[in-house]
């Protein structure tokens, strides 16, 4: 699973400028919905590929062994593949470096949809077995396996009087590693996911164990910043085996307040004012009625709900609550709810299963003051597409809102594609907003984004010169047929 594999294949398939302009989006669509009639044979073959073997490693040594098999340092005879193919040629001569055979990794849970291009044979690692959570209770740090559920970390940290510094943007039962391997987003009112991660350790394409950061302290510049590179796209050049993450003290009093609005303009104004208070709230989440009912159960206090986590001692909670209510004025009802993360693990998982049935397409990033416009447009889009549209979301003290649209529709590729396209179009209409989704990266024609992507692809090639991790798909050398078998 790899965004870079998708990007590379698209790059290769549309290498001719005219193709890029004319067929790029049609190609993305056809690949996404697996419309084999509209695709050339070589692309169909690529899309039909799958991993030769799925391995569930128990520790980082087994991950390392799998990578060493893929990069040719260990024989593949035991796997039924000729040893000389991957041992002699790959290691000694390097001629097999373009062979799309290596190690790929699947996230534990996906919020949206799969990548376009599946692994081209090779070994697929299921990192669900690397799910250890170590909280020593003294330092404000934890070590977690990439397959460890965030909820498990939360529960362990809570026993030690701590919190993970970030929460899932949508309360699904995702693994911490999904922030790197998949499409899970984590944040709190104050902290972003990158600031939560001290270190991503894993196995590089050369088979060596690497630390992209430091286990006990944050990496604040001592040479090239590998930590952020690993957090943003680490799974493209290494297989994560552990993350060292930052915890924060759990306040003695934690309360969860919810404010209801009947108007998105009022909600957006409240969000903007909230982020200007300078108060250290724990989380600020957004829901519509349906999402509220799924997350908290029971009837929502209003059509649009803002949930704010307030922590502190009694005096601080009182002061923060008073300031909060002044900032979010305009609400029609208020209530106190249970802390959304404190459910028992089973109940959390059951709730996640229900939430997971909604069709998510990505995340709209915009200024808090624009959140209302984003919400209105999502609802409008749902109506126009015949799928009820709603939202969850978060707000950070930076003044940014993250609106996560959902649709009550069947998770069919065609539906997902059309709704994603619709969200991308509506985001363009908001201005000062971005659509954070894998399809949006593929569609993005901004020259700076294209250039950055090109640099990232080159970086990935350089960092994994053995081409052992998430190797790209390659097309047969025949020209792309725009109208295969004469069909237009």
């Amino acid at each position, binding site marked *: 699973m790899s965004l870079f594999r998708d990007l590379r294949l698209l790059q290769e398939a549309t290498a001719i400028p005219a193709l890029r302009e004319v067929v790029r989006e049609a190609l993305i669509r056809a690949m996404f919905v697996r419309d084999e009639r509209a695709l050339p044979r070589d692309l169909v073959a690529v899309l039909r590929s799958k991993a030769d073997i799925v391995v569930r490693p128990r520790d980082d040594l087994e991950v390392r062994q799998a990578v060493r098999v893929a990069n040719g340092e260990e024989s593949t005879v035991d796997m039924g593949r000729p040893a000389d193919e991957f041992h002699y040629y790959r290691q000694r001569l390097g001629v097999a470096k373009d062979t799309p055979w290596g190690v790929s990794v699947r996230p534990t849970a996906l919020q949206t949809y799969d990548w376009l291009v599946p692994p081209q044979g090779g070994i697929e690692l299921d990192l669900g077995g690397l799910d250890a959570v170590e909280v020593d209770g003294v330092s404000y740090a934890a070590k977690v396996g990439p397959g460890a559920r965030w909820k498990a970390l939360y529960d362990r940290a809570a026993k030690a009087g701590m919190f993970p510094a970030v929460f899932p943007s949508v309360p699904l039962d995702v693994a911490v590693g999904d922030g790197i391997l998949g499409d899970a987003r984590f944040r709190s009112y104050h902290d972003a996911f990158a600031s939560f991660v001290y270190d991503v350790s894993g196995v590089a394409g050369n088979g060596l164990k690497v630390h992209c950061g430091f286990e006990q*302290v*944050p990496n604040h510049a001592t040479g*090239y910043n590998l930590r952020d590179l690993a957090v943003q796209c680490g799974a493209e050049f290494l297989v994560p085996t552990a993350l060292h993450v930052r915890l924060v*003290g759990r306040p003695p009093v934690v309360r969860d307040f919810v404010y209801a609005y009947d108007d998105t303009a009022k909600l957006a104004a409240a969000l903007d004012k909230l982020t200007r208070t300078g108060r250290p709230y724990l989380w600020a989440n957004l829901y519509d009625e349906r999402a509220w009912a799924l997350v908290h159960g029971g009837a929502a206090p209003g059509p649009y709900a803002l949930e704010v986590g307030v922590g*502190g001692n009694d005096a601080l909670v009182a002061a923060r609550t008073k300031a909060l209510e002044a900032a979010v004025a305009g609400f029609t009802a208020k209530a106190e709810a249970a802390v959304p993360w404190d459910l028992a693990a089973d109940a959390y998982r059951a709730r996640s299963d229900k939430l997971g049935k909604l069709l998510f397409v990505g995340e709209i990033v*915009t200024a808090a003051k624009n959140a209302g416009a984003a919400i209105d447009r999502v609802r409008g889009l749902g109506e126009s597409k015949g799928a009820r549209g709603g939202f969850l979301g978060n707000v950070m003290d930076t003044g940014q809102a993250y609106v996560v649209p959902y649709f009550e529709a069947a998770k069919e590729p065609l539906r997902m594609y059309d709704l994603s396209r619709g969200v991308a179009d509506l985001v363009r209409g908001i201005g*000062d907003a971005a659509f954070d989704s894998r399809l949006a990266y593929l569609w993005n024609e901004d020259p700076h984004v294209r250039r950055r992507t090109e640099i990232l692809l080159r970086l990935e090639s350089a960092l994994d010169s053995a081409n052992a991790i998430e190797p790209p798909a390659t097309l047969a050398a025949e020209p792309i047929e725009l109208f295969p078998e004469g069909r237009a």
Partner: protein
Amino acid sequence: MANRLDYAYRRLVNVLGPGRVKRGPFESLLYGHDFAALPKALALTFDVEPDFVVLPRTTEEVVRVVRFQAESGLPIVPRGGGTGMYGGAVPNRGGILIDFRMMNRVVNVDAANRTITVEAGCTWQEAFDRAWAAGLFLPVYPTFAISSTVGGWINSGGVGVGAMKYGSPRDLLRNLEVVLEDGTVLQTGSDRVDLGGSPTDLGPLFVGSEGTLALATRATLRLHPRPEEIRPLAYAFPTLAAALPALRALAASPVRPYHVALLDPSHLELVKAVHRDAPEPAAIALVVFEGPKDENAEGEKVVDALVATGGGAKLAAETAKDLWDDRRFAYPMRRISGGLVVCEAIVPLGKLGEALAQVRALRDRLKMEVGVHAAAVDANSVAVYPYFLDDEASPMPPARLAFAVAFRERMLDLGGHPMGIGLLLAFQVAAIHGNAHRFFRPIKETLDPQGRFNAGKMHEIRTKYDFPGLRRVPLSLAAFPIRVLGALKRIGPRDNLARRYTQHGGAR
């Protein structure tokens, strides 16, 4: 060579005009070192004096200099305020030094989006003041905010004031405009939308890269609402290590200070040597809150209680205010000797006592005058800043570098990491990053395959010589002369620069 340089000079003058291309001996001398004077002996290995100093005013001019470099082959070294410590902005092979301080405009303060866009040569102080005037707050800035430039600190990385609550410059960076080695301009993110954490946000890659990957020309930083109040509080402890339980309790408490500075008596002794009215030497924790007044008042109560339990004593509000006001003037003792080198490392909070003990042991072993202070980075870690006085006129300065090298090694042993690589500390990269150091060369070669920007640093140590076998210092041997000089320092006399300064008039 002279003809080639004359030709290059004329070409650069054509680009920038005669007033903004310098090649005089004074400029060469001035730009041949940064905040810490480099040992003279390094001239044997490096050509630290640039052939030209250029002062562009626009990104377009930087692009033209980069394109000229492609013709001339002269290496380019970017430089901000020159407040680095290890020669990161000092040439190793002469060439063109780009001083960004004429690109110092505040381009835009966007109050609605809470961002500030500045050119790379704008100082942090200027950016802070402009944001403040617009009702906003630039929460993180370096100790040398008055002269340190935005581009310079982004390039060098590190932590400064406000780290405890807001992190580092990387956490503020929304977009960085950089000139790449092919002369094209790249926006690493977006001025209008926060792409932080998205796979295509390239900004963090350039933070801490010491100008070896691209030339930063403009940055857009996140701002926060201007706080109602900034409240500094000072507490005295028997020793800094004795403050550790209170710091741990603070991490577990429901309050989140903006900044926590820890001042060792050794630091205040040196401050006292130059400022008569400085606080009496003691172990002091400066805890600063920012935000609404009622939050700060409650924060003060919580910290007062924690400190009282932890054996500390609260100092007068004026003392706290003075210490806070002096945060940008942390090193007045540079006046004592004219030279000062500040080392910087982040260690786990639980190892602070050991880190301070290691600093004292090194100080005694090398017979040096060392001050030390520290600052909390988050609930789990602390940045330690030991510094030593350095007499440029003495024949012994290189020996004092042994302190920096040994300090960095010891902090690594404690589970921390030192900051800054600079001109000649690349030999420590493997120890700091382990196997991940193998990623450094591919990163450099991807973004700057021709080695145009600040080449020969970060993952290698390149000399001024162009003969096979002499072009680079083998990393395994690089530390050897420093260690030998360190050994010589141990048998030499004890430094007494501060005492001599006091005897000759001393503090004002």
